[in-house]
């Protein structure tokens, strides 16, 4: 496992942290190469770091997140999660089950299930015992202010509540990395602020690494690191 110094530490107190996410010279295209989205992107995120990916629509933020989360394969290059290379990894679902939580711009909840049932889905995948799963849900619901809405169906929830539910669900199996693709993108400014604050709170309390795509500069500026993407390439700021 490779260790790097925390970018925010001063010379007197350098903290070494493990690289948990890494992409090396990653290329990705769609339509059989007709649309080149990523052009040799290299990226690293260390344990506990919050990273914001910014850039215009179509610059490759979401594509990079999908590759980092093991949801897609690069055409070329190397992606590793906790030093494990994803290429050719057969049981990739184990990554999504235990290591990585994903939050999308749209909440992607299952409408026919209640908030509680939606949140318990990752624990069903992991085979977590019911008692532990419910205890964890209570803990997260309390942190996200959803305790009183557990038995509500998704249609009854507000946009902010739905997104908070999605965050809860992503964190149910205690992942070490949270990938968020414009998590506040579909919310109004006020709700967006609330959700982001919650996200930061959860990241801090759970000791997560957060890699997030966002168009919101104000939000991006509050992350440990802001990475600018332009035309499939990356510029660290």
């Amino acid at each position: 496992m490779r260790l790097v110094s925390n970018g925010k530490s001063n010379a007197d107190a350098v903290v070494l942290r493990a690289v948990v996410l890494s992409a090396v010279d990653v290329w990705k295209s769609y339509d059989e190469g007709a649309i080149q989205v990523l052009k040799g992107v290299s990226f690293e995120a260390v344990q506990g770091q919050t990273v914001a990916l910014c850039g215009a629509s179509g610059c490759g933020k979401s594509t990079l997140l999908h590759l980092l989360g093991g949801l897609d394969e690069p055409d070329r290059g190397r992606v590793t999660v906790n030093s494990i290379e994803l290429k050719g990894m057969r049981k990739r679902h184990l990554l999504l089950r235990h290591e990585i939580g994903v939050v999308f711009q749209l909440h992607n909840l299952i409408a026919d299930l209640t908030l509680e049932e939606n949140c318990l889905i990752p624990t069903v995948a992991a085979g977590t015992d019911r008692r532990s799963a419910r205890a964890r849900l209570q803990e997260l619901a309390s942190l996200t202010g959803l305790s009183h809405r557990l038995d509500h169906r998704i249609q009854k929830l507000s946009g902010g509540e739905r997104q908070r539910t999605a965050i809860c669900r992503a964190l149910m199996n205690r992942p070490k990395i949270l990938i968020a693709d414009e998590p506040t993108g579909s919310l109004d400014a006020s709700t967006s602020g609330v959700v982001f604050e919650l996200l930061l709170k959860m990241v801090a309390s759970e000791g997560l690494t957060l890699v997030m795509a966002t168009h919101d500069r104000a939000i991006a500026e509050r992350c440990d690191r802001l990475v600018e993407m332009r035309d499939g390439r990356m510029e660290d700021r």
Partner: protein
Amino acid sequence: MIFLKLILTNLRRHRIRSFISIAGIAFSVAAMLTVVTILQGAIAMFSGILSSDSEIIVFERNVSDLFFSNVPAAAVKDIASWPMVRNADPVLFGIVSSADHPIITCFGVTAGDARIRKATWVSGDRDNFAQHADDVVLGERAAEFMAAALGSTVQIGHGSFHVIGILKTANGFEDGGVFMPLSAAQSFFHKEGTSSVVTIKLRNKEDATLFKSQVKARYANLIALEDAEFTRTYSQFRILKATAWAVGGCGLLLGGLGVANTMIMSVFTRIREIAILRVNGFSDVQIGGMIFGESALVSVLGAAVGLLIGACSLFGLKLVPALHGYINAEVQPVVVLIVVLLALLTGVAGALYPAIYAMRIRAVEALRFE
């Protein structure tokens, strides 16, 4: 629990589609159960005729149907004289017709035959049997549909016969049949000096093997089979059984296609949901299990409803007066087991392609484009 709810949710979402699939399996199961049970009942009844107070049947080797079998009277006489044989009853089978009834089974038997001796005589005297060539005894059901009573004359085929008795048996074929003296039947069917089969009762059942080998040694053109052996190997029975299962199987195949169609639609309409489950750590096996679970549930429900419909239809058929005694509605547990297993297998087979399709759904594409 949530896994089960994910399965149930989808069935509830598309209630009519689910109902049609369950109905498809149910009717297939009911058809299979009904057809197989009726035919097995018919076979059991026919076997019952042959095994009436006997353990072994002797008939002509290599005949496709017992109606074509000819056992010479000399052979019957010889076999009856063997020390190990208690009774040797020759029986001649024939198909006759009467007004409004194209098919009536006719049994040419001797006065000492167990069918005559052991039946319950509703009217008439068993001692009068075989006194005259034009005397017949009718089964109770046959008397009913021929509107005949003791002493009346009935037209059977090209001849007129005098009814000297009416007897009641538990066997539908016998109850709907006509019993003639053997010699009269031989003459009527132009089979003088022969019978279709000889039913044998041994003094000691242990001698069955010895008896069979003795028949084989002495009469190359005859074969002796124990009752169970006969039921198992008789080609007509095997054809009937195979036909019943094939007809039922075709029904189930159609039901299976219905399930396949439902499951394909189910997967296509929940691609996004499957993608969400994938992002939350569901494995291929879990996704496939969900699809198979859904089809298994449809099959189990369909099988349960089908068994109920089948049992009711068998019960109903048994009550139809015209079929009285012909339908043996006793459902054998092994038939139920096979039918349910086949229904489950059909459901699982129907879900195979949809499950593979679901397992191949790539979360990122499904979530990006929907």
